[in-house]
């Protein structure tokens, strides 16, 4: 019941905020029929990207940027629509055995890469093999690919419909080609997307990308002629560019959302996708004290972090997986009890970390938001007598200490629709002991493990942030998924923005995307 009330309040708050975003001019009737042509100008906050899924790091904050851009040029085997239906993409049909260990996908025929070469099952297997978890193998057989898992994989479709599981072909020169609605034409100040083992991949800094419509796309030519992507745009400048018409779609930083709303900008928010949390370093013996962990956990004021510091652009997080992904996050409660925390702290020996010498809190991610959260953690902890020192540059300019920190502030970007895969990856990345609960596809087991992690306070969630974007009013058919995929292939621009375009597109029977 409390959850419902909270949700309603959350909704009402969001809606009150949204009140101001709607234009005040009198309503005008506009055509709903998509128009071809135009260049969508996109500005993103990330300063660099790589389109090679093999180089992506699970949970990194750049995963969203990488995935959105990769989705322009690559396709997956399947997709998940907003109604919960798995939609065929490069795979037209699929089946699995009774144990869900063996899955077979039939590859769509007559699909071509953007360079004109045909897609084969072998290409699919070659692309996906290095991306799959260790317990999953793939092989091509004829026009199908077969996935073989060591244990039950009921979530394989969710897995393949999200994250890095794009199909591509690596060229001899190391570049990658795909079957998506766009192809990468030009990358300014850098190189084309290179192969994962190319030494340039990880360090490639592409500041401008130009994607042109792929006329050979199996799903039909996109409405847009091109998408112009600029990376590394500062948040305020991105909003400004949107407002003055220099861009049609910009990624918004959380602290820009309120400003955008006040300026009546059209704002889109995803479901909470990025989790900020704390992790104790188990290698430091003094941090294994359970009372210390409990005291610290009870001192954290998540409501203020989400509601004030992040100006309601985030939600307090009590679970590792968000509610929209696990369905049971509401069962966890991130309790704040300062008095109880003080009692626990007083009962601790004086020499326990945080007493004589402060607990060092290292932010594993950069950015003002992480720093702000770290400082708030320190302030909350100090209130209960626990001394926490956020690490950063000292006032005298010296670099942060080389000594390992007892606490870490991490950020985790949801990247998979498989909650089991997500939880496993999150735990592994944060060095939590491997689950002994077996197959995490089972919600019981998954819940049990998540509860164990949270009760032992190996990880302490703080807040969860959605992704935000600002849109120009000329952007039409904007239908992103709640889990952050933009699906720009279906977007079209109002005529006023559509420049003197090129020839009308290919109007094949299946030209319009579903």
């Amino acid at each position, binding site marked *: 019941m409390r959850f419902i009330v909270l949700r309603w309040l959350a909704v009402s708050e969001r809606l009150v905020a949204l009140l101001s975003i709607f234009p005040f001019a009198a309503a005008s009737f506009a055509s709903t029929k998509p128009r071809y042509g135009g260049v969508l100008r996109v500005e993103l906050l990330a300063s660099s990207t790589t389109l090679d899924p093999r180089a992506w790091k699970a949970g990194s904050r750049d995963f969203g940027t990488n995935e959105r851009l990769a989705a322009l040029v690559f396709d997956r085997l399947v997709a998940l629509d907003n109604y919960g239906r798995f939609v065929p993409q490069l795979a037209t049909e699929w089946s699995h055995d009774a144990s869900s260990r063996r899955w077979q996908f039939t590859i769509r025929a007559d699909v071509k890469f953007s360079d004109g070469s045909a897609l084969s099952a072998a290409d699919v297997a070659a692309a996906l093999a290095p991306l799959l978890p260790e317990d999953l193998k793939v092989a091509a057989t004829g026009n199908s690919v077969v996935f073989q898992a060591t244990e039950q994989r009921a979530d394989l479709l969710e897995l393949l419909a999200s994250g890095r599981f794009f199909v591509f072909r690596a060229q001899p020169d190391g570049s990658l080609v795909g079957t998506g609605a766009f192809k990468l034409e030009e990358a300014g100040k850098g190189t084309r997307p290179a192969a994962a083992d190319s030494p340039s991949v990880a360090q490639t800094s592409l500041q401008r990308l130009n994607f042109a419509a792929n006329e050979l796309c199996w799903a039909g030519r996109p409405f847009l002629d091109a998408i112009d992507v600029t990376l590394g745009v500062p948040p305020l400048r991105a909003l400004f560019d949107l407002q003055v018409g220099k861009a049609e779609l910009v990624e918004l930083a959380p602290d820009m959302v*309120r400003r955008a709303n006040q300026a009546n900008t059209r704002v889109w928010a995803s479901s909470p996708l990025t989790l900020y949390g704390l992790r104790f370093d188990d290698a430091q013996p003094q941090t294994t004290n359970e009372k210390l962990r409990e005291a610290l956990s009870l001192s954290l004021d998540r409501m203020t972090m989400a*509601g*004030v*510091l992040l100006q309601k652009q985030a939600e307090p997080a009590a679970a590792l997986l968000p509610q929209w992904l696990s369905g049971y996050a509401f069962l966890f409660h991130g309790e704040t009890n300062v008095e109880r925390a003080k009692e626990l702290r007083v009962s601790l020996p004086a020499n326990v970390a945080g007493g004589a010498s402060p607990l060092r809190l290292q932010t594993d991610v950069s950015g003002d938001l992480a720093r702000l959260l770290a*400082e708030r953690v320190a302030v909350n902890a100090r209130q209960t007598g626990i001394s926490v020192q956020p690490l950063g540059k000292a*006032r005298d300019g010296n670099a942060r200490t080389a000594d390992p920190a007892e606490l870490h502030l991490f950020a985790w970007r949801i990247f998979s629709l498989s909650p089991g895969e997500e939880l496993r990856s999150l735990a592994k990345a944060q060095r939590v002991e491997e689950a002994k609960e077996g197959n995490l596809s089972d919600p019981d087991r998954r819940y049990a493990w998540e509860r164990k992690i949270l009760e032992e306070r190996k990880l302490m969630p703080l807040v969860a942030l959605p992704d935000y974007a600002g849109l120009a009013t000329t952007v039409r058919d904007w239908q992103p998924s709640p889990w952050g995929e933009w699906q720009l292939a279906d977007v079209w621009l109002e005529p006023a923005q559509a420049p003197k375009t090129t020839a009308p597109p290919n109007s094949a029977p299946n030209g319009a995307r579903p």
Partner: protein
Amino acid sequence: MSFRTKLFWVFLVTMLVSVSIVSYAVTHYSRAPFEEIDRERTEALVAQFQKEYAQRGEEVGRQLDNIINSELTARMAIDLANPNADQSLYFRDAVGMAQEHGLDFVEIVNFQGTLISSVQYPARVGYKEDWVTQVSDWHEVAPFLRKEELPDGSDLSLSAVRTYPVEKKNLYIIGGKRMDRHFLASLVLPAGMRALLYRNLDPTFSAAEIVDSNDTLQNPERLEPLINQIRKQSQPLVETVNWTGNAADAETFHSIPLLGRNNEVLGALLVGSSQRELVLLKRKISWLAAIVGVSALFVGLILTWWISRRITRPIEELADGARDVASGRWDRHIDLRGRDEVGQLAGAFNEMTQTLASQKERLVQAERVAAWRELARRLAHELRNPLFPLQITVENLQRARQLSQDQFQEVFNESTATLKAELSNLNAIVNRFSDFSKMPTPRFTKVRINEALRDAMRLFEPQFNAVGKPPVGTELFLGEGLPEIDADPDLLHKAFQNLILNALDAMPAGGTLKLRTSGQDEKIRIEVSDTGKGLTPEECSRLFTPYYTTKQLGTGLGLAIVQSIVSDHHGTISVSSEESRGTTFRIDLPQRQPGVLLKPAVEEKKSEGEEPARATAAANQG
């Protein structure tokens, strides 16, 4: 110590004392103006700092007033006056306010004292800032120093608070500017001075909190004692800091504490004034004094040598001349020129010796005449006594021619006896005169005094116990181990004889004769004492005058002979007497005679050629 040495030391001491006094005075009195200038410059700098501080505070207040008067603040205040206001709306507003109004620190606090927005520490939003709500009217409160808590430490700001009241619920805007090097850089510093700011933000001294606008401060830890003192007592202090071992690198700091609202020491202004100029000046003076002192030493030596030559040489010459005159060279002449006192003295000396030389002949002649007159008088006196009886006797004989043969024979026998006696007397007188005039020049040889005395005593032994006369006792106190002296044994024998004879003559009723010898200071003392009736002081004074005698039958020459002999031996004789107790004659003889060739102890005949010299010497000694 010679006059030259004394003169040198006097001169040197005088110079050194003078130089020291002068250098001390110069050092002392030159320090005062320096210190005065230093003080004035420090006061001016402090006044400048205070003015800058006040201006900055006013600027902060002005900017806060601008913030308060803005529409944004009004809306915010109205909204936040509601207890259920959505405070998150204003979370970032402090940043905009700070940027727009050029403030380093801005915080917004609602009427409940809850922090709504903060530039410097946004993570603290939601916590209480009760100190702000405790003052009812912040407009009355001047800008103040404040320690700003930051996520990674703390900072020092000059802050003020303004309020926006809405139905008695205030919205508080706290704003401030950082107290850092830029603040110090606005001060105009005279040469040799600098201003430092210490921000008292840590529990203990931290060198990193010393703000130096010029970045010239080295070894800041040397300021620790001064800063710790000011942290404790929050009073202005003055202290000199030696940065290196060189005193010229010292710097005097006037430190003024900077207090917060609750009079806590939040900082200190340190105005440093270099002591280099003063120290170098003092060193210069010291060097100069040392050079002058050393120069004075050399000059003193030269001058001393020169002056002493001009003064002591003449004096030494004068002294030599006096010694020569004393030794008999009356014709000594001092060859000194000059019109100063020393020259006058030399001239007077020369005049004296000339006079003495010229008067010497007249004196000698006069003495001769006097001596002849005295001799003639004495001779007349001596001769008159026996001549009268002779005359009477001859007259008796003439008258006796009228008498009978028998009567004439009796008168003739008596008269001839009387004539013989008186003629013998006359002969004795003539012999004594002859003896006195025949006093020879002593011929020195080694003589043992004790033996000489015993020899003289032996002659008179029969008289000591003569029959029919009172006995005279003798006591000899002769010093043992007395050295031999240079003396004429004959003359000494004669002198001792005369003294013993005198003593016997002074004891007609008997008594004791004492003889004593002793040696001291290269002299031999001989004492002859009797226990006679003694002498009066007048008699003592005339005792050695020739022909003075207290005896009825004396010629008065005996003691004169003794005196002459003693004088020839370069000795002295004195007498002391007490009436009815006795008289003591004391003779001091030197052991050695100057320029004397020692004659072996063999008697030599006296030559007649020596008599006149002896007579002259005796006459001279009359």
